Every structure is written in structure tokens, then in C-alpha cells.
């Protein structure tokens, strides 16, 4: 029957521990997105107040789930310090963490991770891989106290947007590598705030659907950060030529 499948399509699903973008009215901003195919639930909610109220309730639940994931941990921070708190936050979301002079800590397929890092004292976090995590503006507060963070990967994070990028200036002293590939909500306006990160040496801004002119944006970002190597457009693929170009 069509109705249960429409319900399935409704909410944020977690496949293999990675978060998907929230569906419904909150669609990713793409410059040329045409009318998406309407689901049965969208059709019903246009015509019945009750279905609309139910849909709004379900969307609200999704949003509160994301907010719960991005909560802060004041007790852990007090007891173990900001590095361990940041690491715990990332591991709970499904990302990976590397402490200085230690190996990468990753959660396994069932979301379990080893807890020996709780015993680390004064060992700073060096690298964070938050690919595909549901980290958002609130959750960034857990990452910003990591003053020795050298590498941050925010690939394919559905809730990272321009506002989050404007908070990254606090990591300017240490951050050398940043990857934003595949984030659906990052646009060139957020990339403009990266000029604070003067120690950045590698920046990956490939595959950003919300950036209107990827080639031009890459050139402007390269001018903005002269010491940084920017990976974005694939220059080996030539410009798209029209079929009837003389």
C-alpha cells in the first residue's frame, strides 16, 4: 500500500550509523531544484488539517532528535576536560577521533567504541573525522574548545551550514586541514568566513551543491587564503561546451 511507504519516506533515517538529511519541507537548497515529486503524505496534508498537524509533529520530533544529539555535556566537561568531552561527542555521533600520538578511535558497526580515552589526561585531540554526522550549530560548541585540533573533516554532514562555518575562527591557531566536501547546506557565503583560518594548508570544497559558481568560488577562496591548497573543481574536465558552438 502506498501510505506506509509514504510514512517511511517521511523521517530522517539512520542507515549504517550515518544520518540522512531531514525530508519534508526542509529540502537541501540547490540553485536549480525543480518541483520534487509529491509523496502521498504531502498530498494528504494539503487537504486535511489533521494530517498536516501530524506531519508537523513528526518533523518536530526529528528536529528535537537532532538537537538531543547535539547537546552539550557539562558534567563530563567538568570531570574529564574539554578534549575528552569533544571526543565523546564525536564518537557518540558515529565519527572518529585521533588523540595526539595515539591511534584513531572509531565506533564499530553497532555504535560501540572503546572507552580507554576517558583515562587520557591532558592529551589533546589532533584530528576529528565527523563525516556524515548530524553535527549542527549547537554541536559545534563541543568541538570549539579543542585548541590543538589540526584536522577536521565535515564531509557530507547534512546539518552543517554557513552559520557553523562562521564559528570556526576559534580554531584558527591550530587548524591545518579542513574538508567540507559534499555538505548540502554550505554556500559561498559561509566559505567567505574561512579567511580567519590563516594556518590552513589543505581545504577541500568539492561537491558543494549550494555553491552557485564552484569554479569562481574556488578562485576567490584561493585568493583569500594564499598559503592554502584548495581542492574543489576538477580542472582536468574542460568547460562545458554547447553542442552548436561554432
Amino acid at each position, binding site marked *: 500500500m502506498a501510505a506506509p511507504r509514504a510514512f517511511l519516506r517521511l523521517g530522517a533515517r539512520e542507515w549504517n550509523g550515518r544520518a540522512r538529511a531531514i525530508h519534508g*519541507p*526542509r*529540502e537541501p*537548497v540547490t540553485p536549480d*531544484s525543480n518541483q520534487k515529486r*509529491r509523496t502521498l503524505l*504531502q498530498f494528504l496534508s*494539503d487537504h*486535511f*488539517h*489533521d494530517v498536516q*498537524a*501530524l506531519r508537523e*509533529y513528526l518533523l518536530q520530533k526529528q528536529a528535537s532528535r537532532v538537537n538531543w544529539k547535539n547537546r552539550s555535556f557539562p558534567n563530563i566537561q567538568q570531570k574529564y576536560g574539554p578534549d575528552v568531552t569533544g571526543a565523546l561527542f564525536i564518537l557518540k555521533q558515529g565519527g572518529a577521533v585521533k588523540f595526539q600520538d595515539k591511534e584513531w578511535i572509531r565506533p564499530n558497526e553497532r555504535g560501540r567504541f572503546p572507552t580507554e580515552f576517558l583515562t587520557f589526561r591532558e592529551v589533546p585531540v589532533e584530528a576529528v573525522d565527523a563525516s556524515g554526522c548530524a553535527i549542527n550549530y549547537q554541536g559545534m560548541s563541543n568541538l570549539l574548545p579543542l585548541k590543538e585540533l589540526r584536522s577536521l573533516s565535515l564531509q557530507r554532514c547534512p546539518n552543517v551550514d*554557513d*552559520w557553523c*562555518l*562562521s*564559528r570556526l*575562527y576559534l580554531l584558527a591557531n591550530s587548524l591545518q586541514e579542513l574538508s567540507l566536501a559534499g555538505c548540502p547546506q554550505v554556500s*559561498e*557565503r*559561509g*566559505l*567567505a*568566513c574561512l*579567511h*580567519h583560518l590563516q594556518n590552513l594548508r589543505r581545504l577541500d570544497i568539492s561537491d558543494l551543491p549550494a555553491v*552557485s*559558481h564552484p569554479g*569562481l*568560488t574556488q578562485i*576567490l*577562496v584561493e*585568493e*583569500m587564503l594564499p598559503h592554502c591548497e584548495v581542492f574543489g573543481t576538477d580542472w582536468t574536465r574542460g568547460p562545458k561546451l554547447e553542442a552548436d558552438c561554432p
Partner: protein
Amino acid sequence: MFRRVLRLGLTPGRPNRGLRTRRGGFILDWDAKVSDFKKKIECMLPGKQWGMPYDTSYLPPKQSDVVIIGGGILGLSVAFWLKKMESSRGAIRVLVVEQDHTEYLAVVDAPLVDLQFNPSGCLLLASEKNAATLESNVKMQRQEGAKVCLISPEQLQNKFPWINIEGVALASYGMEDEGWFDAWSLFQGLRRKVQSMGVLLYQGEVTRFITSSRQMETTSGEQVVLRRIHEVQVKMNNSLEYQPVECAVVINAAGAWSGQVAELAGIGKGLPGTLQGTKLPVEPRKRYVHLWHCPQGPGLETPLVADINGVYFRREGLGSNYLGGCSPTEEEEPDPTNLEVDHDFFQNKVWPHLVQRVPSFKTLKVQSNWAGYYDYNTFDQNGVVGPHPLVVNMYFATGFSGHGLQHAPGIGRAVAEMVLEGQFKTIDMSPFLFNRFYLGEKLQEYNIL
């Protein structure tokens, strides 16, 4: 039946009262209404002349609980908060009347409103004279949680090599969550949302208020005349037809024309120096905005730069375009009766200062100009919020002299709280009340762009 039961469960507030009449008490001209109704019934009976009324769906409704005069960002914001804070769905009928209506095709199930927020920050420059004011402003902003910092001229030169720091003593720079956004998309998004919440938007001009007044005595024994607005007459554009709308509350969010609307309600008609004689000191002021192209100009990291003498500019898009302008001094105020752009203004007043601050702007080329109105408060350049002391059901939400857009959500909520609950709950806006014009207490706003 099912739907009503479900709605009782899902929506908050009291359940629907059903057929109980909404109003009781004083209704203007009851007898005429009864005879009108009798005439309509008579023409429906068989054998009589068919004189049923024609289609009037283009006219605003005959009654509305709240009429908001002015469909700009402030008016829509007030409408939004009134609908959000109502106790049950459909409890308050809100009507927004806007004079100038450029129709925009609404998109069904449209994607989330993209405000195009540029979090590049605002850079405010100050000379020796203003450095102390800037410092105290920044201190106050930091206390409230804003992430701004003070920069010295040397640090400024390091950060932005294209700037000329001559004459700059201090600068304030917003590090986080500060920048500019697209006002038009906010406006359109708010319009859509407000329409989906059940607010009626109509085009027309308010030409008259039907009021009643009565003498009252204050606690100190003085006689005052309190007025109450009963009807708002909305005239349709390009015709003489008008619709009287009975209302309980009127909100004056008419922007640059708030002064004229207030005069219609009798505000300011009295001996000068008395409360009756205090006019609403909001008048339209024309301001120009210029868009120019400069290929060697500052790059992607350019914040919104507000120079010492009131000239400001910011980056626009990715193609080396910049947008900016300047507020003229009192003597040079342009004529507000039309929206014609004076091109010499840019040449003589704006460009020299731009070149002095950013030398690469010497080779700029102006692409376009336009003009708009500020709802300029001649008293202290700060807004008026809240009820009028004598006209008891008129509330103001105007006079912000160019800052209305950034304050709109907060003001909307404050006015909605005032209307629904009788006092300011979240933020105390009592310094912005109308009384200060009579008492002479200025709430001066210094940073007008």
C-alpha cells in the same frame, strides 16, 4: 464530526465554542444593520426583485479583530506573532492593509526560505572623537553575548590589506553570526508564512477612521479625552470604492507614512505642548543605494564596512560588485516626494570617501542606483512601540529610521504581547513608548547608516 474531535485533541487551547455569538455589547448602528438584513431577506423571497449583492470578494472583510496598516516587514512580523501567540487556532482575525502591492506568484510547498545570510561580519570604524562611544557600545554588546571585538588600526591593516587606516582610531569587528542577509526573501517568506497562518492581506489605502471619544478624569483630577477607533475605511486603489472594516485594535506599521495615518486618528490635533497636541514625529526620508563594479576591489572576505562619516559598503555576490551608500546631513536632505535618484550625490558625497578608505575603488563603475524611504523619527531616530496614551486601541510599530528590518521579529513579538496580554513580557520596551515625545526624553540612536 471526526475532524472536530481530532482537532480538539491536537490543537492547544479551549475547544470551539460552536454557535455562541462572538460579540455582545455596543455595536455601532444596530438598527440600520437590522433593516439592511431585512431588505436582503425580502429580495430572496419569491415574487420580489432579485437584488442580491454582487461579488465583493476583492474587498476586505467587513469585520476584523486586528487591522494592521502597512504590510511591510514590521506589519507582517506583528501579524505573525499575533497568530503564533493566539490561544486557539483561528481565535484572532487579522487583516493587513498595504498600499503598494507588487504581486509575487506564491509557490506551493515551497522549499525553506533561504535568507542568503552572509556571516562576514560588520566592520565599524571610529575616529578619535567616537572611539569612546564605540568602546562602550562594544562592551554593552559583549555583555549581551554578541561576539564582537575591538581592533586597533595596525591589526586592521594586517587583516584587510586593502584598507587605508588614515583617521581610524578604533574599529569593531563582528566575529560570529554577524553580517547581512537578503531582506526581500525574508519579506516573501514571512508573507507566505503569515498567509498560511490565516492572515488576510489586502491592497488598499486607509483614508478615514471612525472614532468615538469620551471625557475621563485622571487620578490627579485632570480632564482627558480618550478616543477609540471603531472602523477603518479602506479605499481601493484606482477607484472611489471603500470598505469600512470594523475592528478592535489598529496597529500603525505604515513606515514612512505613519505620521499621516496617525493624523487621521486625531493624534496631534490639539494645542502644541499638550499630550493631545503631540504629533507622531515620523516622516519619510529618501535614501539612495548604489551598486558598483570594481574588478580590483576587496575580495571574498570583505565585511560590511561602515566608515566614520556615515558611508557604508559591502560585497554583493561573487562578481566584484559592491553595494553601498551614505546618509546625507540635515542640510542636504533630498526631496521625499518622489523616488528619483540624484546621480551627483554619489559623485560628490559618496565616492570621495570611498576612495579615501579603499584606494582600489578609484576605478569603480556605477552599475545602478535606487532610492527608498526611511521612516525617519525626527525626535531621536529611534522607534515607537506600544499604545498611544489617548487613542486607546492604536498601537505603533514604526519610526526605526532604517533599522526596522533588523528589529522586526523582536518588535512584532513585543507588540503582539502588548495587544494580547497588555504588557511587554519578553523584552521590556517601555523606553520606546509614545509618551517620551510628550515628556521630551530622548532615546538617541547614534549609529544611523
